[in-house]
């Protein structure tokens, strides 16, 4: 193989590999990218039961109920337009409180209940999950205390 040909082969190989990566990514994204839903999104266009999705909104005031087993909570996530029932079995994050923002990974079951596998609450006073930016939270009262401004 001439040097020029070898260079060309390697360059072609690299191009093929990277195009392959792009195609693989496109395929996997189509299949696996879990769309972010707000309760209104779910109300308008219900995702398939069992499909992995991410839900974000505010925890409705007074909606958190603990089950008798002590490790399951049910609550309602709401935005300006709709409410969505959620159930979660596990230890809730430290800043998971009523009236606060929450993002949950999980799936809808056949009854329209959102079964959460992980809950992301606010990290600290200053952090809002980015997906929740710009969403109208009707009862989204969360006091932010800042010592110095």
């Amino acid at each position, binding site marked *: 193989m001439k*040097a020029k040909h070898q260079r060309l082969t390697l360059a072609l190989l690299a191009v093929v590999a990277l195009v392959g*990566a792009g195609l693989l990514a496109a395929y996997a994204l189509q299949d696996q*990218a879990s769309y*972010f839903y707000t309760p209104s999104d779910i109300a308008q266009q219900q995702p398939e039961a069992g499909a992995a999705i991410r839900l974000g909104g505010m925890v409705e005031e007074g909606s958190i109920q603990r089950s008798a087993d002590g490790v399951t909570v049910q609550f309602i996530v709401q935005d300006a337009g709709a409410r969505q029932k959620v159930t979660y*079995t*596990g230890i809730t994050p430290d800043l998971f409180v009523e009236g606060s923002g929450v993002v949950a990974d999980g799936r809808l079951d056949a009854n329209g209940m959102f079964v959460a596998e992980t809950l992301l609450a606010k*990290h600290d*006073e200053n952090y809002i*999950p980015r997906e929740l930016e710009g969403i109208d939270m009707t009862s989204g009262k969360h006091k932010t205390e800042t010592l*110095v401004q």
Partner: protein
Amino acid sequence: MIAETGLIALWLAAALALLQFALGAIGLRAERNDYYAAIRPVAVAQGLFVSLSFLLLIWLFLRSDMSVRLVVMNSASVKPLLYKFAGTWGNHEGSMLLWVTVMGLAGAFIALFERSLNKRTLVATLAAQAFISLGFYAFLLVSSNPFERMFPVPADGQGLNPLLQDPGLAFHPPTLYFGYVGLSVAFSFAVGAMITRDVGAAFAKAMRPWVLGAWIFLTLGITAGSYWAYYELGWGGWWFWDPVENASLMPWLAATALLHSVTVLATRDSLRAWTLMLAVVAFSMSMIGTFLVRSGILTSVHAFAVDPERGSFILALLAIYIGGAMALFALRVGTVKEGKRFELVSREGALVANNLLLSVILALVFIGTLYPLLVEAVTGDKLSVGPPYFNLATGPLALLLVAVMAAGPLLRWRRDNPKALLNRISIPILITAAALFALALFTTGMSILALLGLALAAGVAVASFAPLWKRNLRRTPLHTYGMVIAHFGIAVALVGMACESSFTEERLVAAQPGDEIAVNDWKLKFEAIEPMAGPNWTALEGRITAQYGDGAIHEITPQNRMFAAAQTQTSEAALLTRWNGQLYVVLGDGDSEGRWQIRVWWKPFVTLIWYGGILVALGGFLAMVGRLRRGYKQRKQREFVEATL
């Protein structure tokens, strides 16, 4: 006065960086030897002044000077000393100053110690290094002054984010930054070599220690970050494919590829253009990583210090550096002379395969991380890409890469005989097949990826020692040992990952004091809940005893901490480490009936993940020491020969 002195030192360092760049640029154009001579002391002075500035900032944090805005926002007088110290870089301004300090020190180090590089390339490298630093100086001085004063002076500060108050995390960001900055030096070398058209073995040998150093720090940083997320978040996971994690993984993937291609360039003088390209890509990835983490543009389980405006500044820097380097690359790549040729079945061929696979994995992670941003920019839809995508897309390729890694060191340089090769790798292949067979027979519920991973790890563990086979172990160079240990470390980590994902057992209960919990062969007894107080927090501590089979009884104490200053809670998981795994206990909330949520995991061999990472970094360290020592000896020998002639 300390703050003002720090600011003045920073301005002086910036001015020196400008001078350093100008000396290089004008000197190269006019080919002036006096300019070349002047650039070294200027680089050293720049390093000294920026270090002074950073030390003064540390001093301000240590003495809790509440007239400085940055200290107020990120520290508190009651905070433990360690976190006052670490709080210096646990924020945007401080970490940017740390970045530019490490860059300045690296420039000073090159100016003082680099002897093997062609003089003009060295000058071009130092000028490029100063040019990159200038962007960060501008950033600090214009929009993120760390020494800004505050009036009126508040009584106390806001404290550090409690999640960051952890010894592991205190030193995790600087570790990653050393890695990022090391890649910026490699980038400067590549730019310097492109400017002087001097790409060859000598250049690769000069660049290699920096790539190796950056790669060691990135490896340690990622390992430490993974362990931190594992025990601090209390979720029991060690990798979440979170954008912030990806931001550190992407430069590591690029650096790993670069490390291998720069070795080909140094030993065989092949892959010249490709190595330059990778140096540009690796630094781009560290800049993109910084951008993602600092801009708040992505949702992350650990996105700290978010600010879109600063994000745009970093984005602008990114565009200038990367765009400039790419343009230079496009202009000069045609004039880079061809390197030496090789057959496809050869050590070079295996390293090319390694590079291609790493590049593809990098591309897949990159696409997955940035895809949500792109979609949102185009359609306005919010979307997230999670672990299912990343595992599916990168898992099989990673296993293929590990297989190439096992075979690569057994190949000869330039050309090899496929039959002889097959002979050499037959034992690892047999071991992999046997392991696969045994696992398929005796285990249940393993995912295909984990099954293949565990079997492959067995083969790789053996294959990684093959380069030592039939060699005189005392005369084997240190860098060969380095490679062996690093590759073995990958096998070790792979075992940990496969075992953790396949054999973890979990129990989640609401228990009252006195209740027993069983998981695997462990018997846990929930004894009591007790209040605790720390330096700046109060906590509820669960006292739990754990016994493995009929073995000794251990006490473990998971906590829920409340931080008054930031009104934040953190849960401190309790970990009990045994040779064959780790018991992981998290305390949740209590309820009105006196029950407490307790989550227990038994994770067999999970610690191997991080031991593997440490072994990989250790291998890199041995390789670096070996290379540097050999380079030093060769130089001494050359000088001796020249002196005697």
